[in-house]
């Protein structure tokens, strides 16, 4: 089982390696506070960079002790942003009220921050597939355990 892990959940391994490489630490932040269930703002600190990403943590997975999982959530927020054609679609996808000024602020913040995150990590670092994450499949389980086991 352990021997098969790198082959089967390579994305998780890459995430873990990235966390180690950049010595990433994550903290909750209240810079952007949308009054919606599961919405949090995360401050991601690298050795010489820091990013503030508003994201939806619908399963309450975020834990400062689990940086790999936190990185996954950050990258997932980036994907949500990139997949939404515009603000209205992003709001609808995340279940936000479009007339909420904080939502607009979050959108505008992501518009500036996501390209920086992508530039920092590169294309190789990707979140676990949304479907697998939603279903709580093996990769997700590994993601939730990988920081605890090592």
């Amino acid at each position, binding site marked *: 089982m352990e021997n098969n892990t790198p082959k089967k959940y390579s994305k998780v391994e890459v995430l873990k390696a990235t966390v180690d490489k950049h010595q990433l630490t994550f903290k909750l932040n209240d810079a952007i506070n949308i009054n919606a269930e599961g919405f949090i703002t995360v401050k991601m600190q690298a050795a010489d960079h820091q990013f503030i990403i508003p994201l939806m943590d619908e399963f309450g997975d975020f834990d400062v002790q689990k940086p790999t999982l936190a990185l996954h959530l950050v990258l997932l927020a980036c994907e949500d942003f990139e997949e939404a054609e*515009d*603000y*209205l679609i992003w709001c609808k996808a995340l279940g936000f009220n479009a*007339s*909420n*000024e904080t939502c607009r602020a979050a959108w505008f913040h992501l*518009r500036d921050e996501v390209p920086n995150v992508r530039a920092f990590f590169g294309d190789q670092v990707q979140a676990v597939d949304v479907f697998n994450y939603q279903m709580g499949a093996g990769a997700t389980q590994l993601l939730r355990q990988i920081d605890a086991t090592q």
Partner: protein
Amino acid sequence: MDKLSKRLDSDILRKIILKAKQHQYYVFGCAALLLGLFGYFMWFYQPLKPIWKPIGPNLLFALRYDTGLKDSAIIDQIEQLLGEDFSSKWEDFGKAVLKKEDVKPQESVVSWHTAYSESPQVLYNWRFNEKTSRDVLLAIQNQSSLKIRQYREEKIYQYSNAISDFHFYLINRVLTASTSPLLLEASLRVLTNDVENVQPKVVKQLKKDGIGLIINLNAIAEAFDALVGFPKHANSPVRLSALNLVANSKKIQAFYSENTFAVNDKSIRQTAFTKKSDLLYNTTQPLEKAQVSKETKQRLSLLKERFGFDVDNLRQGLSNTFTHFILRSEYVLQPYQVLAFPLKDSSMVSSELARLHPNVLPNAKVFTLIKQPALPNLILPMKLDAFPNIYYLIQDSVLWLSNFSLPQQKLKALKAASLSTKGIKVYINHALKFSFTDKLGTLGERFFDKIDGAALYFQRDSVFIDIDLQGDKSVFGRLDTLLAIPTKRQIKKQVFPVKNHYTNALEFLWQDEKTRLHLMSDSGEFLWEKAVWYFAKDHIHQVDIYNNEKLQYAFVSDGRIHAYDRLGRTLNGFPIGLSTYFEAQFLRPLRWKNEKEQRFLVAGSLPGNAKNSGGKLYLYNRYGGLSRGWAPRNVEAPLACAPKLISHEGKDVILALLKNGSFYAFDKNGRVMPGFPLITNLICSSAFLVDRARNIHFMSEGGTIIELDLQGRLLKREQVRSRITGTIFHLLPEQQSGADFLVAMQQGRRLVVKDRNLKAYFTHTLTSDNPQQLAYYDFGEDKKFLLVFDERDNTCRLLNEKGKDWLAKPLATQIMPLLIARNGSRIDLVLSKDNSITVLSNGE
């Protein structure tokens, strides 16, 4: 014998001619010498132009001085100039009023005006040639009745008649006279120095300390104006360039052309020679009071009834001599009125009149009497309705209507003056004769102070007044009824101006209360009506669906997009059914840049309660399908107004304002553009506008003005302050260009209007505190209007740019009127009242 003498004569003549031929140069020389002597003689004894310097009843004189002098110094110098003799008349002088005005940057004028006097004091000057002046002097010296006194080494003669004393002196061929010794002495003081160089209008300035005496002709003209209500007319060729006031004979004369004065040596009597055609007011030969005909009596009684103008009393006060009659413009409406209507199809109107009135000849060349109001497509002004008879005449594609029988020769004169315009021309019958007497001063105050522009001209035995109702900006504008066409049913909401794509003429389209669509031509002809069965939710737009430069009419109803062609036929494929779970509110026909296909952007709301009902935007093609590339867009709130399509940096941009104050910009694929939305959390319900700098302005119901640019940046957020709760705020885009706007606040009956920078524009007091609908029109300089419509009272009023009522009284209308600028300065107002569509025009 006779034959012999004739032969001798002819022989002598022949010899003389022969001799002359031999000495022709001498002959021509002698002839030239004789001609020269004759010319010199004529030049020497030529009649001289008069020096003419009257001083009006109020103006004593004026002193021009350098502005470098102090006022106290000037007064000292005036006293010095006038001398000690003047101090004896200090009582008169004490009544004088000092006025100071700057003439040039370096010069000012101090003018002394006496208090108003019943007997104006006038100064006259006459210039004579050498011989006449000798005769005049001889005549004066031989008059034993003259009293003589000495002043400044000059003899002043005093001539007394039954009315008053006349003082004069003669020096250097100039006879100067006045009833006032004071004026005469003042003139003697300044005129004797260099009489020869006295100019007709401006007396040569004294060099002493830069002070000189001038006669202010303009002031005199103003004085005359104040006295008799001299009508002003900006375009009139008649200008008051000279005045001759004779007060003691109780006559006031004004001449505008050059006059020649002669003096009879037996009695000093003044006679004026002038062309009658040049004469403005003439009382030298007063006409006797004419017999008042029955018709005139009827008109006079109408005058008295309507305006309280008691002509009989007036006559008694005017010593029974009447020459001319001037009416203030608001009184001139009746009883003499001639209207000229240019006709597009005179034969049609003529035949229609003939059909309505079979007893009259269709091609009559004189005015024909008909009974009103059976005039096709023509509604006369209300005041004229009271007249029992109307005379009409159609000549040269002009329909003339008169409320009295107008002789043919008078018509010619009227036609010459009024064919180019459609304004009211007033014909004054010579049967009414009035004169200007000393009572005219009082009369002027009562009747002449509000003539807003008039020209008076003579023709044979008649006098015409051309009233220019637009002459003075302070006077109310006037709208005459062009059309008043009955409609079968009441007009719903508003009338839309549409263009005839064949003729470019304006047409009117509207929907009635039974959903029927009506098209009416500019001349009041109903072109068609069409049962639609649905009410238009928004404007009715003109679109070129087939891209062939022919225009159709399109609008959105609750569930459909409708389109009809110019003949009222439903277009193939229309109406387009809309989505069932959607309430359409606005339609915006649009065409993407560089694309030919006509599309329809429909904005509306999704059914639901007030909290969660959102807005939706559909884009349809002309075939009824959803347009490719545009997925129906949901927005979080319904739209506040119709979306707009603009082109920005070569790209099509759709702008939409939501009721919750969010402002969106979509690209042609319906994607929210970068920088948008701008979320303001304001309640908005009025339209936004895009100004020339491509900035967007909108206003919330609470009076917050938002300005943003097309990058979605907030440029300005300003709260219009109001001390009163319940204030209704309006952002009023200019209806023509839509690029400028005004801000209006209705606080009860108080309407405060501000410009776009929130600087106060004007304040107007409304007649009721009902919420008013406002529209701002800018047709150019001096033609800015605020249309105020009271939906509850069914009245509308037009305010000018100063906030004053442009119309004398509010107009009744059941719909929001439409204001249209035509060619030139003509303005039409389209409204609806009493189940009829009415077009009013200022007729310029």
